[in-house]
C-alpha cells in the first residue's frame, strides 16, 4: 500500500497534487487573517491522505484553497498548488472551472445542504457530465444511474426522480459521492464527510469511501477531526494545528510513534475501548487553540505544551524535521524537542483513581412510558376521524441508579433519550409509570409544580454549548440566579461568593462573572453549564450529550471535569450519549436504547462483551477506534432508522437487524432476557446463541496502557 507514496516516488510519476509553502489568508475588517501557514502536501496517484485537526486549524481552508474557492475575501498569499503539474494559482477562472468537478471533486460535511433542494437528484447528477464532457442527456442519465449503483444505492431509478429531502442522510451522502465521482476525478477532497451522520450510517459511508479509494485509483484527501476514521481510510496523515502541519507520516508510523506533543495530546484525549475513567483518566490538553492573528511566536503549540521551553520554543518559527525515512515514507514533525521528549515517561506520572463506591439507589425509573399525540393533518384522516396518532417516544423504560453512580443512556438520533431526559426534568410528564427520586415520584409532576428542593436535586447539563447559556446575560447572573432561585443564598454578596466558588470548581477564572456567553469558547460554556447544574448541590445530574459538540481536546477536559465534580459530590450522573467509546470510558452501567425502547441494559463490562444485543453489536462495530492494533469486526447496518411515527410492529430493530431470525422479529415484541442480575437483552434470539457471538472488538494481548509506545 505504501509503495507509491512520498514526494518522489520511484517510478517518477508526477504526484496528483503537490502543494508547497502554501499560505492562505482571509481579509476582514480586522485585517489579514492568516488561516493557513506554510503548508506542504503531496498526494500521489491513488493515495489517500488524511488531514486531521481540531476545528479552526485551517483544514477546510486547505481544501477550499486547492479548489481555489476562497470566497471574495480569501486568497492564496504564497506558495504553489500544483495539480497534475499545473499551478492552480496561475489558471484563469475558466480553466479553474474546468478543473473543478472534472479533475478535482469535493464531498462535504452536510449532504443535505450540499444538494440543491429544488432540483431532482437526476438533474444535479446529470449536469456534471453534460457540462464537462458535453455528453447527451441519455448518456448522462445512464452514467448517473451507473454511478448510483456503484455507490450501493438500492433503487437508483426511483432515487433519481427524487428531491434531496426525500432521501435519508446516508443516501444523500452517497449521492454526493456519486456526483463527485461522475467525471472520474483524479483527486477527491472529502471534508468531514460523515460528521453529520449517525454512527451506524457513518460506518457504511466510511466503508464505501475506503472501498472506492482502493478500487478507483482516485487520490483522496480526507479531512476529519476523528483520528479513528483516518485509520480506516487513509494511507498517510497530516496533523494540522493552527494553520500548519505539525506532524505527517504514514498512518502506522503516526499512530505508533506520535512525535509531536500535540499529536500525542490528541491521542490522550480519546477514550479507547480498553480504558476507563479510573484506570486511565483522559489526559486533556490544557488551553485552547490560538486565534489566527494571535499566534504566539515560535511554536504555535507552545503555550499549551507540557514540554515548552522558554527561549527555545518561542524564538523562531519551527521548521519541519524528518523523524525518519523508512522506505519512501517520510515521518516529519514540527517540534524542536521531538527526540528529547519521552512520552512514556510523561505518561507514568499520571494518577489512577479509585472507583467511586456506589451508594443507595437514588433514582428509580419504573416502567416509564411517554406517548405523544400527533395530530394527523391529512384530509382522509380528518374524514375518518382518526386524526390523532400516538408516538411512543419512550416505551417501558426501567432502570435505577445509585448515589455516585454513572449510568449511560446510549442510542442514535430518535431513540428517545432526549424525551427521557425531558420527563425526568419535568418538562414533560410521563404517560405511565414512575420516576422516583429519593422515593418521590417525579414523573407526573411537571416542573412548575416541583418544589425548589426537588428542582435543585435534579439538574441537567445540556448538549449544545451555544444554546446552554442565555446570550443576553452575564455568566455571573446566570449562575447567581440559580443560587437565588433554589434559596441557597439570598444575600447578594454571599451569592457572589458562591458563584466565584463554583467558577473555581469548574476551573474558570473568577472574572468570568462579568462575561457574556459569546466571549467564551465552547468548552468554557459547557463548564459554566456544569457549574450551573451543580450550583444547587443536585443529587442527580443528567448530562445530555455534553461533549458531542466539542473538539476532542476540549471534550476530554470537560469529561474529566464532570467526573471530578461527580466524584466530589457523589452525584448520580445520567450520561446520555451516542458515543460508545465515551460511554465505555465513564459509565458504570449502560442502557442501550433504540426507537424509544431499551434494547440492552447492564454494567459496562456486560454490555461490551457478549452476549450482545445485535444492535449493541452493530453500534460497537461502528465506533471508530484510533488504535491500529485493535481489531474490529465490521458490521454495516442496512437501511435507515425507521420514523418514530411509524415504528415496526415487532422488534423495533427488526428492519435493520443483521441477525434477524425471521418473521417473528417483525411481528412480535422481543422478550426481555435476563443474563445475570441486571444484564438484560430484549431479543428473540436465545441468550445462549447470543453468547456464542464473537466479541466485536479484540484488544491485542499486551500492556493495557500504551497505544503509543515508541520503540525508536
Amino acid at each position: 500500500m505504501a509503495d507509491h507514496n512520498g514526494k518522489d516516488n520511484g517510478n517518477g510519476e508526477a504526484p496528483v497534487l503537490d502543494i508547497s509553502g502554501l499560505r492562505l489568508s482571509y481579509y476582514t475588517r480586522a485585517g489579514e487573517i492568516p488561516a493557513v501557514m506554510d503548508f506542504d502536501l503531496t498526494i500521489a496517484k491513488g493515495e489517500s491522505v488524511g488531514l486531521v485537526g481540531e476545528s479552526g486549524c485551517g483544514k477546510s481552508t486547505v481544501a477550499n484553497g486547492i479548489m481555489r474557492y476562497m470566497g471574495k475575501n480569501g486568497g492564496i498569499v504564497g506558495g504553489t498548488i500544483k495539480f497534475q503539474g499545473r499551478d492552480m494559482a496561475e489558471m484563469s477562472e475558466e480553466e479553474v472551472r474546468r478543473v473543478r468537478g472534472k479533475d478535482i471533486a469535493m464531498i462535504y460535511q452536510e449532504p443535505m445542504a450540499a444538494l440543491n433542494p429544488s432540483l431532482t437528484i437526476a438533474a444535479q447528477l446529470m449536469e456534471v457530465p453534460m457540462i464537462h464532457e458535453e455528453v447527451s442527456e441519455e448518456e448522462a442519465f445512464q452514467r448517473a444511474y451507473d454511478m448510483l449503483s456503484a455507490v450501493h444505492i438500492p433503487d437508483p431509478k426511483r432515487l433519481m426522480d427524487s428531491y434531496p429531502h426525500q432521501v435519508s442522510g446516508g443516501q444523500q451522502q452517497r449521492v454526493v459521492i456519486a456526483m463527485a465521482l461522475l467525471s472520474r476525478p483524479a483527486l477527491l477532497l472529502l471534508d468531514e464527510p460523515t460528521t453529520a451522520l449517525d454512527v451506524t450510517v457513518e460506518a457504511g459511508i466510511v466503508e464505501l469511501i475506503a472501498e472506492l479509494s482502493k478500487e478507483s485509483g482516485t487520490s483522496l484527501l480526507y479531512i476529519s477531526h476523528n483520528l479513528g476514521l483516518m485509520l480506516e481510510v487513509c494511507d498517510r496523515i497530516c496533523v494540522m494545528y493552527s494553520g500548519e502541519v505539525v506532524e505527517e507520516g504514514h498512518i502506522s508510523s503516526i499512530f505508533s510513534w506520535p512525535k509531536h506533543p500535540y499529536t500525542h495530546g490528541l491521542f490522550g484525549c480519546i477514550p479507547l475501548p480498553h480504558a476507563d475513567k479510573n484506570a486511565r483518566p483522559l489526559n486533556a490538553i490544557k488551553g485552547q487553540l490560538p486565534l489566527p492573528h494571535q499566534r504566539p511566536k515560535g511554536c504555535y503549540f507552545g503555550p499549551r505544551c507540557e514540554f515548552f521551553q522558554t527561549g527555545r520554543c518561542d524564538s523562531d518559527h519551527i521548521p519541519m524535521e524528518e523523524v525518519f525515512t523508512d522506505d519512501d515514507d517520510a515521518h516529519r514533525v514540527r517540534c524542536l524537542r521531538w527526540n528529547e521528549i519521552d512520552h512514556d515517561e510523561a505518561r507514568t506520572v499520571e494518577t489512577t483513581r479509585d472507583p467511586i463506591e456506589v451508594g443507595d439507589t437514588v433514582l428509580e425509573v419504573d416502567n416509564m412510558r411517554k406517548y405523544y399525540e400527533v395530530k394527523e393533518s391529512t384530509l382522509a384522516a380528518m374524514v375518518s376521524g382518526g386524526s390523532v396518532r400516538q408516538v411512543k417516544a419512550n416505551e417501558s423504560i426501567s432502570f435505577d441508579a445509585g448515589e455516585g453512580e454513572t449510568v449511560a443512556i446510549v442510542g442514535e438520533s430518535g431513540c428517545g433519550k432526549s424525551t427521557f431526559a425531558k420527563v425526568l426534568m419535568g418538562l414533560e410528564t410521563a404517560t405511565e409509570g414512575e420516576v422516583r427520586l429519593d422515593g418521590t415520584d417525579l414523573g407526573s409532576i411537571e416542573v412548575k409544580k416541583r418544589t425548589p428542593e426537588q428542582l435543585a436535586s435534579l439538574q441537567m447539563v445540556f448538549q449544545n454549548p451555544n444554546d446552554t447559556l442565555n446570550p443576553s446575560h452575564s455568566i455571573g447572573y446566570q449562575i447567581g440566579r440559580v443560587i437565588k432561585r433554589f434559596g441557597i443564598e439570598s444575600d447578594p454578596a454571599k451569592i457572589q461568593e458562591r458563584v466565584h466558588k463554583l467558577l473555581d470548581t469548574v476551573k474558570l477564572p473568577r472574572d468570568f462573572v462579568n462575561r457574556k456567553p459569546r466571549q467564551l469558547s465552547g468548552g468554557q460554556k459547557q463548564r459554566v453549564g456544569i457549574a450551573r447544574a451543580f450550583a444547587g448541590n443536585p443529587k442527580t445530574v443528567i448530562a445530555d450529550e455534553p461533549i458531542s459538540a466539542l473538539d476532542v481536546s476540549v471534550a476530554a477536559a470537560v469529561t474529566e471535569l464532570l467526573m471530578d465534580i461527580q466524584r466530589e459530590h457523589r452525584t448520580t450522573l445520567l450520561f446520555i450519549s451516542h458515543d460508545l467509546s465515551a460511554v465505555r470510558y465513564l459509565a458504570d452501567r449502560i442502557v442501550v436504547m433504540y426507537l424509544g425502547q431499551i434494547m440492552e441494559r447492564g454494567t459496562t463490562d456486560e454490555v461490551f462483551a457478549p452476549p450482545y444485543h445485535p444492535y449493541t453489536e452493530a453500534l460497537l462495530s461502528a465506533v471508530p477506534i484510533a488504535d491500529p492494533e485493535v481489531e474490529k469486526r465490521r458490521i454495516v447496518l442496512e437501511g435507515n432508522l425507521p420514523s418514530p411515527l411509524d415504528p415496526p410492529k415487532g422488534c423495533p430493530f427488526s428492519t435493520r437487524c443483521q441477525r434477524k431470525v425471521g418473521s417473528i422479529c417483525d411481528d412480535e415484541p422481543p422478550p426481555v432476557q435476563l443474563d445475570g442480575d441486571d444484564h438484560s437483552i430484549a431479543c428473540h434470539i436465545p441468550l445462549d446463541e447470543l453468547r456464542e457471538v464473537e466479541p466485536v472488538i479484540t484488544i491485542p494481548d499486551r500492556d493495557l496502557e500504551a497505544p503509543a509506545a515508541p520503540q525508536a
Partner: protein
Amino acid sequence: MATNSDSTPLVRPDSTILNAVKAMALLRESPVGMVGALIVLFFVLLAIFAPLVSPYDPNATMLPFAFPGTAAPDGGVFLFGTDHLGRDILSRIIWGGQRVLFYATVATISAYIVGILMGLAAGYFRGYLDEIISFFANVILSFPIMVLYVLIIAKLGASGLNIVFAVVFASSPGIMRIVRGVTMDIATRDYIAASQTRGEGPWYIMLVEILPNARSPLIVDFCLRMGYTTITIGALGFLGLGLPPPDPDWGGMITETRAFVTGGFPHMAIMPACAVSLLVLGFNLLADGLREVSLRD
C-alpha cells in the same frame, strides 16, 4: 486574573438600553447604518433643541410666499422660505419634526409594548391563547393597513392620542407575529429549559430569558416601523386626518401647500416632503445597518 471587585452586579439582567448603545457602537461596521443613525440623530437633536434652533415661531405669520433665502422683515432670513400664510418653513419643519418624532415614537413604542406582550404570550404558552391572539392578528392584518388607519381616525377623530391608538391597533399584530415567531424559536433553546428546570415563572422566562434575545430582529423592525409610522402620520395628514393644525406636522404641511407647488412655489411642499423622506430614509438605513451588523455577529 482570578478575583475581581465586589461591586460587580450579579443578580441583575443587563439593561437593554446599554445593549442598544453597544449595538449603535457596532454600527461603525456599517457605513450605511452610520449614515442612517446620523440622519436620525440629526432629527432627534433638532427636535430636542427645537426651541433653540428654530429661527421663528412656527405659527407666526410673517411674509407670505417668500422664496428660500428671502430676507425676513426682522433682518433675518427665511432659509427655506415661507408658506402661503407667511410662516417660516424651516421653523415649521423643525417643530413639525419634533411633533412627528414624538408621536411616532410614542405610537411605535406603545405598539411594541402591546405587540411584545401578545407575541410572548402567544409564542410561549401556545395552545388556545396563541390561536385566539393569532386569529385577531389575522383579522387586523387582513385589512389594508392604510384603510384601517382611515377608519379608526375617521371614527375617533384626528388627534395625537387617536393616532397613537390607531398605530397601536394596526401595527401591534405585525409586531406580535415577529415576537411570536422569535419566541417559539427561542423557547426551544436549552437555556430556556434550564430556566424552566430551576422553576422560573412564565413571565420571568418571557421577559428576562426570551425577550432580550429577541432584541436584534426587534430593534431592526423598530427602526423600520418608526419609518412606517412617520410615513403613516404624514399620510393621515395628507388625507386630512392628521395631527390637529395649526402646529406643523409634515404631512399636513405638504397637503396645506401642495396646491402652490404648481403655482410656482414648489419649496413649500417640497421642503417638508424632503424632510419626511430624509427621516424615513434615516430610519431605513439605520435598520439596514443594524441588520447587517446583527447578521455579521
